[in-house]
Structures are given as structure tokens and as C-alpha cells.
């Protein structure tokens, strides 16, 4: 990314985005106090949100749902429609942001050619009732009882591999609500975030998984790895260029965990993917054969269809091949600003560890997305002059989430990557603190082996 591209990204407000976000904030505020006691102002906010979709196919049903909910008729169908309306509005914000980013970067993007199947798994019913109860009560009214009341239902979802996505989402939301209870005593609420998760939960429990549309073969050149994590889940998502197609793709693997397994130990939970982890730790390319590719640009990773290739420098890949690579389409239901994670390469900047300056334009580093499972630190960002990262947008601001940096430390030129510790920490200090903590994965697996199957 060049200074001029960064300047173009910030050049002028995007029409309609602030208005859309205001409508969403009004809806989120209604969820704070609950749909059972909306009051005039919050009822008007729901109607206004529905009104914004007046010219779309969703318009009439959204208007009806808002009308019914504001007079106290709160059904699963109406709540789902309102969640859909909020999601559609955020979808429009997402599209505007991504179009601006693609324009600024000169990046071309594939058209959406997949289908988004519907599903109505009965197992999800109890979780949907819980989401309805939360909306009626409002976040402010959530106590320990309500926060925990879906625990069993979420366990049932977790046990069903097809429902892993809603299960991981709702387990994350429930844990936050439990830890925050009684929510009424909180000084401030993560209103945007919880409304996002709530709406996503309602839609996701009605959505089936995407089907692979093609099988691809070729060489995968990794750019970097993004790590997602909450108390009971971890996912690594590798961004890579697929040769010879010149396509940007991602591949992810996720595992369940518990909160006491964190930091560098999370890699051990993914040990059934040795080819993938080895490639990350040793910076190897990967040869893939007939790997299923989703229309969202996600390769469904199969260890058996991959083998390690030659050493490859992600910075060389980023420098040479990222500019011309084609980005994948975004599935309709995943159009939300939080999912924007577009790989970019920036070099020749000055950094204070928080923000980088490039030809007179500034861009903040996303320090909230620096994982403990890798070697990147704010000190390294400060010493860095080149970065492979993901463009992120949240709360009205673009930020750069670093995946790898080149930095000069003690006159030595280093390249440091998020995935460097995929086979265990390579750094003395991290190894030392790891040894001090023992091996939580081994301890808990031993306990599980001895106690679970009695």
C-alpha cells in the first residue's frame, strides 16, 4: 500500500455511512433496555431502522416487524426480521467500505457466485428462544440466571459438528454475559458488539453452510496468519496467494479449548494439522491437490491433500504478488465491517508503535489484535519499517492488524511473523514462561482421560 493509496482511503466521507450507523445505534440502544419496555424514542428507532430499508425487498416485512414489536407482539419471526434489517444495513456499510478500500488499493474482486442455503435445525431452537428472551429483557436486565440459562442448549450445539459456527458464536456471547452479570451494575455496555452477536446468532441459526464450488490445485504462498480466540475456541486463518491462479485465498482451522489454555499453548490444540503448522513455523509454501474451495475464497483444509513445498519469504510474496492478486467475493450474510480483513503490504514508514506515518498519511496499528500466541509486540512495531497486515475497520476507523513485520533490532534486520511459534515458542523468554506454566494441554488431557470416561 502506497501513501497515495492510504490518502485515497481516507479521502472524504462515504455517503450514507454515518446515517446508517446512527440508525444501527438507535436499534442497539433499544436492545440495551429491552423490547418489552421500549418507550417512545426507542420504538421510533426501530421504526426508523425498518424505514431505511423501505426501498428494498425486506422493506415491507421489516416495517411490519417493527410495528408489531413496538406494540408488544414479540415473536421469533419478528425478531429475526429485525435482526435481518440491522444486518442488511450493516451489509450496505460493509459494501461501501470495501468498495472504497478496493478502489484505493486498485484491487479487483470476484463476483459472488455461491448460494446461501437456509436451514432450520431443531437443535438450535432453544438457543433462539434464549436470544428472544435476551431481546425482550434487554442487556440491562441480564442476570446470572438469564446469562447461564442457555448453557445446556449451547453444549448441545457444540456436540453437533454441523452447528459449530453458531455454537462458537453463542458460547462466546454467553461467557461475556455471565462474566458481566448483573449487567445492570455495569457502568457502560458494549452495545454495538452484543447487538452484533445477537443478530448474527439469530441469522446464523437459520443458515446452512456454504458448499464448495470448485476443487483447486496449485501452490499456496502464505502471507500471514490471523488468530481468533475466546475462552472456549481458537481459530487460525491463513491468508495466502494461490498460484498459478493469482488468487487471494484463506484457509482456517479451529478447535475448542478452555480459558486456561491460552498464549502459545493454543497451537498444541491444532496438532492434527502438522503440514499446515510446519509450513507456518518454517515459512514453507504448500502444494495443494484437489482442495475444495468455497465461493467465499476459503480453502477447506485437508492435510491429506497438501504437502510441504520449498521455503518462501512472505515478504517477497507480498511485495511482488499482492498487487495483482484477485480478492474473493464476500458471502451475502457475512457482509459486516468486522469481517473486512484485507491483506496489504506497507513499507518505508515511520512508526511510534501505535501509528505508522507514510508520506504524510497516518494509519493506526490494531493493537487489540496482536495475539499472545506469536512473537509480535508493540516494541517490534515501533522498530518496524515494513509490515504485512490486514486492513480492519471498526468504530469509524481504519486500522492495520499486523501479521508480520520487518524490523531492525540491535542493528540486526529481523522478519517476525505471527505464525513463528506454530511448533512452539522460538524465543527464550516465551519458552521460559511456558516452562513455568507447565503444559496446560497435557495436564487437562490427562485429567480428561482419567476422569471423563468413568
Amino acid at each position, binding site marked *: 500500500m502506497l501513501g497515495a493509496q492510504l490518502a485515497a482511503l481516507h479521502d472524504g466521507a462515504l455517503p450514507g455511512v454515518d446515517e446508517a450507523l446512527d440508525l444501527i*445505534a438507535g436499534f442497539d440502544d433499544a436492545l440495551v433496555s429491552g423490547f418489552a419496555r421500549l418507550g417512545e424514542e426507542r420504538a421510533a428507532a426501530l421504526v426508523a431502522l425498518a424505514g431505511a430499508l423501505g426501498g428494498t425487498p425486506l422493506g415491507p416485512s421489516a416495517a411490519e416487524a417493527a410495528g408489531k414489536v413496538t406494540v408488544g407482539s414479540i415473536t421469533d419471526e419478528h425478531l429475526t426480521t429485525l435482526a435481518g434489517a440491522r444486518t442488511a444495513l450493516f451489509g450496505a456499510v460493509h459494501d461501501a467500505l470495501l468498495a472504497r478500500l478496493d478502489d484505493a488499493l486498485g484491487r479487483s474482486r470476484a463476483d459472488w457466485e455461491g448460494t446461501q442455503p437456509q436451514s432450520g435445525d431443531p437443535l438450535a431452537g432453544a438457543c433462539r428462544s434464549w436470544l428472544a428472551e435476551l431481546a425482550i429483557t434487554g442487556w440491562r436486565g441480564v442476570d446470572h440466571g438469564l446469562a447461564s440459562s442457555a448453557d445446556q442448549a449451547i*453444549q448441545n450445539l457444540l*456436540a453437533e*459438528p454441523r452447528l*459449530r*459456527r453458531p455454537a*462458537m*458464536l453463542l458460547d*462466546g456471547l454467553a*461467557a461475556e454475559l455471565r462474566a458481566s452479570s448483573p449487567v445492570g451494575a455495569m457502568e*457502560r*455496555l*458494549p*452495545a*454495538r*458488539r452484543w447487538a*452484533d*452477536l445477537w443478530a*448474527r446468532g439469530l441469522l446464523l441459526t437459520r443458515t446452512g453452510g456454504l458448499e464448495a464450488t470448485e476443487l483447486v490445485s496449485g501452490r499456496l504462498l502464505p502471507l500471514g496468519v490471523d488468530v*481468533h*480466540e*475466546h475462552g472456549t*475456541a481458537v481459530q487460525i*486463518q491463513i491468508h495466502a496467494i494461490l498460484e498459478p491462479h493469482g488468487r487471494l485465498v484463506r484457509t*482456517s482451522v*479451529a*478447535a475448542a*479449548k*478452555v*480459558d*486456561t489454555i*491460552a*498464549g502459545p499453548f493454543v497451537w498444541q490444540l*491444532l496438532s492434527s494439522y502438522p503440514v499446515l503448522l510446519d509450513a507456518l513455523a518454517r515459512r514453507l509454501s504448500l502444494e495443494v491437490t484437489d482442495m475444495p474451495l468455497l465461493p467465499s475464497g*476459503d480453502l*477447506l483444509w485437508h492435510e491429506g491433500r497438501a504437502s510441504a513445498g520449498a521455503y518462501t519469504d512472505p515478504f517477497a510474496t507480498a511485495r511482488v504478488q499482492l498487487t495483482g492478486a484477485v480478492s474473493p467475493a464476500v458471502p451475502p450474510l*457475512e457482509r459486516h465491517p468486522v*469481517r473486512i480483513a484485507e491483506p496489504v503490504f506497507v513499507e518505508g514508514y515511520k512508526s511510534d508503535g*501505535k501509528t505508522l506515518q507514510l508520506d504524510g498519511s497516518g494509519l*493506526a496499528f*490494531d*493493537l*487489540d*489484535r*496482536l*495475539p*499472545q500466541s506469536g512473537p509480535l509486540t508493540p516494541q517490534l512495531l515501533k522498530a518496524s519499517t515494513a509490515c504485512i497486515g490486514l486492513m480492519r475497520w*471498526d*468504530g469509524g*476507523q481504519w486500522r492495520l492488524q499486523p501479521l508480520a513485520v520487518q524490523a531492525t533490532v540491535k542493528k540486526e534486520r529481523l522478519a517476525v511473523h505471527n505464525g513463528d511459534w506454530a511448533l512452539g515458542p522460538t524465543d527464550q523468554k516465551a519458552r521460559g*514462561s511456558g516452562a513455568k506454566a*507447565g503444559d*496446560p*494441554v497435557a*495436564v*487437562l488431557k490427562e*485429567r*480428561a482421560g482419567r*476422569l*471423563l470416561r468413568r
Partner: protein
Amino acid sequence: MNAERPAWEQLSGARVLSPVQPRKLAKVPFVEMAEGRLQGVVSSGSDIERVYVSSITAGTHGYNCSTNNNRPCGGLRGTPCKHLQSLVEEAVLQYGLERVARYLRAEGDSAATLVRILSGGHESIPAAVVFSRFLRHLAYLELPDTSEPVAELHWFPSLGAVS
């Protein structure tokens, strides 16, 4: 561009939970603050098959310790046993003194003082409930992993150390 951080309330990726601090799990594999209690499981020092279930009720500071088969802990003679001490020590490591003290509604400047002020005496708290929560906790490690992309986890950035 302004470098000010946007309002936390307006962030989709707002961090709500602080990461738990790493600790050795060998002695106390499980500790939680839930159901109005600080509770957990302490591995027996002498018998690898045996675990103790220890719990302290918030507010009243009543406590209990027994094996998972409901046999009372021999160390519990009018004062908290060593398992309860370990439970509090490890909870303080994991969550920090302030959070543990606030949850218990107790005051103390260390794990040891928190244990010393436990004045609620022996209270009948069912070990089975806590033990089954521990088993559920362990069951997470038995769930199969997946290579289906979980787009929802973009809402959950890895719990970094800085902010």
C-alpha cells in the same frame, strides 16, 4: 486522520473479558467463579485417581471440601483445609486478587488473608454439581476440530496483552 480511539460502546470488536493469567494446572486443574461460589477441583497429592471438590460461597464465606464421591475431606476440621487454600491461591493467580475478593465480597491483601478470614464455617455444598461442571469443562478438549471457516470468530480477536 485522528489517532483517538473510537468509543468502546461503538466497537464491534470491543474487548469485554480480560484474558486469564497463565498458571500451572497440575495441582488445581479447574477454578471458576460461578453460581455464587468460588469453586474448583484440586488434584489429590497422594492418589492420582482422586480429586477434591472445594468451594466457598460468596458473601456468607461458608465452605466445603470433599472428594468427588462426596467423602468429606479429612483436613476439614473446623478450619479450611489445604485444598481450599490451594483453590484460593490459584484463583488469585488466574483472576487477580481484586476480582476474587470482589466476587467473594471479602477483603484481603493476599490469598492467605482471604483464606484466614473465611468465617462461614462448614456449609453443605454438593460436590456433584461442581464436579460435573469440571467434566463439562474438560469435554471441550474432546470436541473435534474443524476446517470450516468460522467467520463469526472475527468478532473475537486473539486476547492480546496490550490495549
